């Protein structure tokens, strides 16, 4: 049974069709890749899947429920987390605070419990803090925990976003170019982390231009061009096919 089933999802900006009746699916714990040249509509598809854009007549089912009508907040609560192509860190909060903010249903966010249940809030803060620390270790950015997020490098900001989405306890994470601006050594580490996540049953759909890093990481690969899925299958088969070569190398629209 698929965790995510998107059918005929379309995204239009005025007269321009960025995503044209695209269907994709991701199984539980599965690692799926999505590649395509710039402007193929990958980020627009992510926006539709995460609820920031309308599904344009298509349907999106997640974890057995039809979430087409859900906004980004309800979809995230249902376990469909995402990161952004350009990192959207909380610039003037510390890295640790960035992660702690993401923890769901915090008593400390209700004014009543803040004033009348201070001890419960304090206790929960410790738990959330510990959880954040573990993720920071997991992504080995613990050494910058107290830095203002704005001062991080591009790669570190990507890790911060990953850590943040993990705090929400997602079932599926839409990773938008996790390796962009990240040094090769770190790419290996991030790949291992992602493999461990899927080991814990968390599936990922990854948009990435670093084809060889991606092909070693994912079980399945979609190729997208001019708003449509051109091919799908095992990474090595798909990469060898002429469709990909044409989309990437020659005859690019």
């Amino acid at each position, binding site marked *: 049974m698929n965790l995510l089933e998107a059918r005929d999802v379309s995204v239009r900006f005025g007269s321009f069709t960025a995503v044209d009746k695209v269907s994709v699916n991701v199984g539980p714990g599965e690692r799926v890749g999505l590649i395509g040249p710039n402007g193929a509509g990958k980020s627009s598809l992510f926006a539709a899947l995460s609820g*920031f854009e309308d599904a344009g007549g298509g349907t999106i089912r997640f974890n057995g429920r039809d979430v087409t009508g859900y906004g*980004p907040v309800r979809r995230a609560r249902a376990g469909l987390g*995402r990161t952004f192509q350009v990192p959207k860190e909380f*610039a003037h909060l510390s890295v640790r605070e960035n992660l702690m*903010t993401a923890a769901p249903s*915090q008593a*400390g966010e209700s004014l009543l419990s803040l004033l009348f249940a201070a001890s419960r809030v304090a206790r929960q803060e410790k738990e959330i803090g510990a959880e954040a620390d573990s993720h920071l270790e997991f992504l080995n950015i613990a050494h910058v925990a107290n830095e203002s997020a704005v001062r991080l490098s591009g790669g570190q900001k990507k890790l911060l976003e990953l850590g*943040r989405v993990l705090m929400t306890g997602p079932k599926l994470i839409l990773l938008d170019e996790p390796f962009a601006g990240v040094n090769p050594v770190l790419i290996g580490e991030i790949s291992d982390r992602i493999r461990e996540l899927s080991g814990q049953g968390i599936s990922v759909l990854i948009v990435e231009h670093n084809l060889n890093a991606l092909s070693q990481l994912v079980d399945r690969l979609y190729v997208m061009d001019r708003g449509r899925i051109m091919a799908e299958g095992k990474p090595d088969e798909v990469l060898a096919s002429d469709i990909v070569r044409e989309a990437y190398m020659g005859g690019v629209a």
Partner: protein
Amino acid sequence: MEAYLIAIAVYALVYLLMGLGLNLHYGFTGLINFGHVGFFAIGAYASCLLTLAGYPMPLGFALALLLPALAAIPIGYLSLRLRSDYLAIVTLGFSEVVRLAIINEKWLTNGVQGVPGIPDVAQGFGLPVSGSVAALIVLLIANALAIALVYRLTRSPFGRAIQAIRDDEEAVRALGKDPGSFKIRVFMIGASLAGLAGAIYGHYITYITPEQFLPLVTFYVWVAIILGGAGKVSGTIVGTLALMTFLEGSRFLRDLLPGVSEVEMASVRLFVIGLALILLVRFRPSGIMGDWTSGGTQR
């Protein structure tokens, strides 16, 4: 001599209470609220009219906290749908609509004739001191509580969430949190603080008219929080003191410029205040204490 300093202290503490509310809106949550004087006016008229109708002053203060909060709900909702510079003009419109309503509803507010003979704070709380000293005491307490409340709020998960909204609202949505409920609650708290400031101001000055609640008051509160450093409680405090120094200090410029006649003095004062605004925004944009972007994670 001291009574004048008390008067200036009361004037400063009223602006500080409003500043703490507005700093919560803009400094911590990024909400550009240019209608703060609207909440100030609602609080002033609520408490003064209620106490004139014979109800005890504490009840008047309670209403001065409640009504602005209720008025803030629709505006909180609007802040979700509108871009921040649009929100600035819409809230400016809100404060003008409040003022026009006060002018027009003569049956309730006595309109432009204003409300004279309002019981002062000493009478209201049975304090054996003069009206202005009583106002000063009540204002010191109110500001202390407000500062404690703001510190408590901004250091809690709630505080983290609203600052996250300030830094990137879209990312907050992607993490499964609804900015709406936070923004509306922040608007309500800030509005209540402004309402309380209005109530104490009304009972201090014992005569209120619609022309005391013009947009200029909102501009002055904005200057205070930006001058001191938005997003920092210490910034609001220092900013309010700096604002008072300009507003009242320029009153004594005449003693330094003997050649200028009284009549031209008004123009010189306006010139000094205007120039000060430009210079400080130009050369010290992040405020005297540095705003939320320049400090570490210290609030």
